[in-house]
């Protein structure tokens, strides 16, 4: 037992610990770090995509016989998801002003657009004419778009929770960190889709 230890806990003094509360909120730091790990996860999946393309060469990189990608539908889905990023952000700006009513409206619209995207993707899958087991093109196509879809689903679950909490009046101009965190995640999912769409549909 050293002299120092008794010195730092004098009996009878108030028990105080000061904590830093400056800079980015803790929840946002956590969410951004989680997104960084998600970037690396999709990085791994994109690596499998480009590796497959390189392995197939000099054979043409195209869907298996009998199947064709639906460019028009994918473009519509892209437009839906990009608009949902805007509606999400309108909701964030609303609650920053303290407008909980507008937050509910914009979150609801964002969630509806997200669900529409997922439904459109499932419809696309049902029409494509090739499956995950049909050569390496089918494998990487369904893995990339499928795992992106799973992330949209995760984001939609987050939006549902935000909507439910907003309905109960849990958010205000000062207290809405969960909205900010889910919105960042939603934008991330949107950006991943832009990368997936560009890679699969535009980079032919």
């Amino acid at each position: 037992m050293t002299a120092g230890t008794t010195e730092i806990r004098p009996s009878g003094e108030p028990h105080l610990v000061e904590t830093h509360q400056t800079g980015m909120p803790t929840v946002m730091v956590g969410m951004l770090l989680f997104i960084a790990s998600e970037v690396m996860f999709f990085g791994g999946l994109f690596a499998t995509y480009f590796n497959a393309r390189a392995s197939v060469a000099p054979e043409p990189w195209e869907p298996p016989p009998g199947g064709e990608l639906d460019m028009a539908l994918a473009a519509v889905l892209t437009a839906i998801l990009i608009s949902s990023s805007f509606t999400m952000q309108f909701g964030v700006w609303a609650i920053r002003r303290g407008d909980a009513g507008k937050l509910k409206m914009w979150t609801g619209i964002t969630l509806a657009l997200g669900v529409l995207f997922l439904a459109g993707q499932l419809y696309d899958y049902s029409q494509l004419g090739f499956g995950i087991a049909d050569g390496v093109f089918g494998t990487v196509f369904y893995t990339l778009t499928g795992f992106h879809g799973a992330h949209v689903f995760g984001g939609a679950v987050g939006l549902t929770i935000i909507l439910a909490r907003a309905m109960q009046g849990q958010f205000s101009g000062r207290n809405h960190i969960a909205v900010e965190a889910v919105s960042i995640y939603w934008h991330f999912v949107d950006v991943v889709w832009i990368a997936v769409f560009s890679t699969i549909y535009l980079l032919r």
Partner: protein
Amino acid sequence: MATTTLEPQAGAPAYRRSWVLDWLTTVDHKKIGILYIVNGFLFFFAAGILALVVRSELAVPGLQLVDQDTFNQAFTMHGTIMLFLFIIPTLSGFANYIVPLQLGAPDMAFPRINALSFWLLPLGGILIFSGYLFGGAAAEGWTGYAPLTSDRFSPGTGTDLWIIGLALVGTASILGAVNFITTIFKMRAPGMTLFRMPIFVWTVLVTAVLILLATPVLTAGLIALFIDRNYGGSFFDPSVGGNPILWQHIFWFFGHPEVYIVILPAMGVVSEVLPVFSRKPLFGYKAFVFATIGIGLLSFSVWAHHMFTTGAVFLPFFSFMTALIAIPTGIKMFNWLGTLYRGKLMLTTPMLFALGFISMFLIGGISGVMLASPPIDFHVQDTYFVVAHLHYVFFGGSVFGVFAAAYYWFPKMTGRRLNEPLGKVHFWIHFIGFNLAFFPMHQLGLSGMPRRVADYSPDAGWTYLNLASTVGAFMIAVSVIPFLINVVASLINGEPAGDDPWEGNTLEWATTSPPPPYNFDRLPPVHSERPLFFLTHGHGHVAERPDDLEEHSEDDVERRGGAA
């Protein structure tokens, strides 16, 4: 700057829970840390028994104990469990317990996520092991190379369970990494700038960044493998356009940073233990920090040195980058030796394990630089030379670090000292057994014995070295007995440790042993990376006028603190 009152309310009603429910539902970083460590050691014993099965079979030529398939399962499970469920989680457990204390924080940033990342671990571990119940565990080696893992060559459920279990354990690691980084950036005590953080915290920070960026890539690879095996995918199947080498790229892009994920926290432990028992500050604190960051950065550019013999990688680049890692590692050797030099050495058990780490890790490092050279690597690829190298790094390095941490922080965690003579018995049996088990493997590898074989010819001249290695393995197993006796006996009837039995430097020694749930009643001022040393030995000018100190450089403070 906000002020939070942490004093428990005197009039609050007593909240009663059963002992079991309390541990199952706890979100206290200290209890979670202990859960991590206990869980890690249970898997250590399980994987150790598998190692004994492997070594017993190899003791003499011929198949005496197990058949080839059981042997393959044994070494696969041994490697997977040791790495993913013993070393990484156990070091995470110490980090969980110690990092918030060293930062002067009341808990981790996300306590409930912390509990989740722990509970995914036993679940993942049980899934991996449960292969034994469903027709045999995974048997492709812990690296799981394609196409051996394809459903054609490994049709068993064990491989699928291995994939799912590893994905869960990886997710646990990622969530833990998010938690550590956030804690370190957001929860530091007033005055604790980044360059006043204890070195263990620095190594945990760099480790967490590596986990955050490397582990998701493995998850992607595991998912690809699962799709290949179960849904007819063809990522790794060359007959329909896939590429088996892709698995090696993905696995080692994770796998090499993973080597540093395993070793960096152990280096951090050693860098805490050496200064305390040399009675000196760590020599070259900032150099050590930059070397740690340098290792972290370089670790992402060396993965293909595991793939030299595939012919699919650019040898000069990966060879050069690998050799470069010797530089920051060499800096750390100088840090440690400089800390020991003219120190007042106290050869306690944690210090012995730290010294064991330095010497054994040096051997592993030297054989690592040898393997970085393609001509040597081509010669010894997949031989016991590689097995010797990786055990000198993982066991001689990380596991010695785990035991150093266990002996060093046990008094803080339990309030009891471990028995020193028994600890020294543990160390010496462990140290001699380790070298007897693994040093002969260098020679076995150089004379051509391949790894992952269950049998060898009596004419090959490998018999005596293998027998020595097996004896060493059993010595390591025996060495654990005094450790366990020591832990149990000390928990029941150990000498009370007091708050600061070692006269430590860092904040975990500034609270009671074990600390209260809220960690600190009051925090001492932090003016250097050794706030406790400062407090106990820095009376007079330094202690009285803390504001004055802000104007001086850290080195200045350190010098005066040390001189007082």
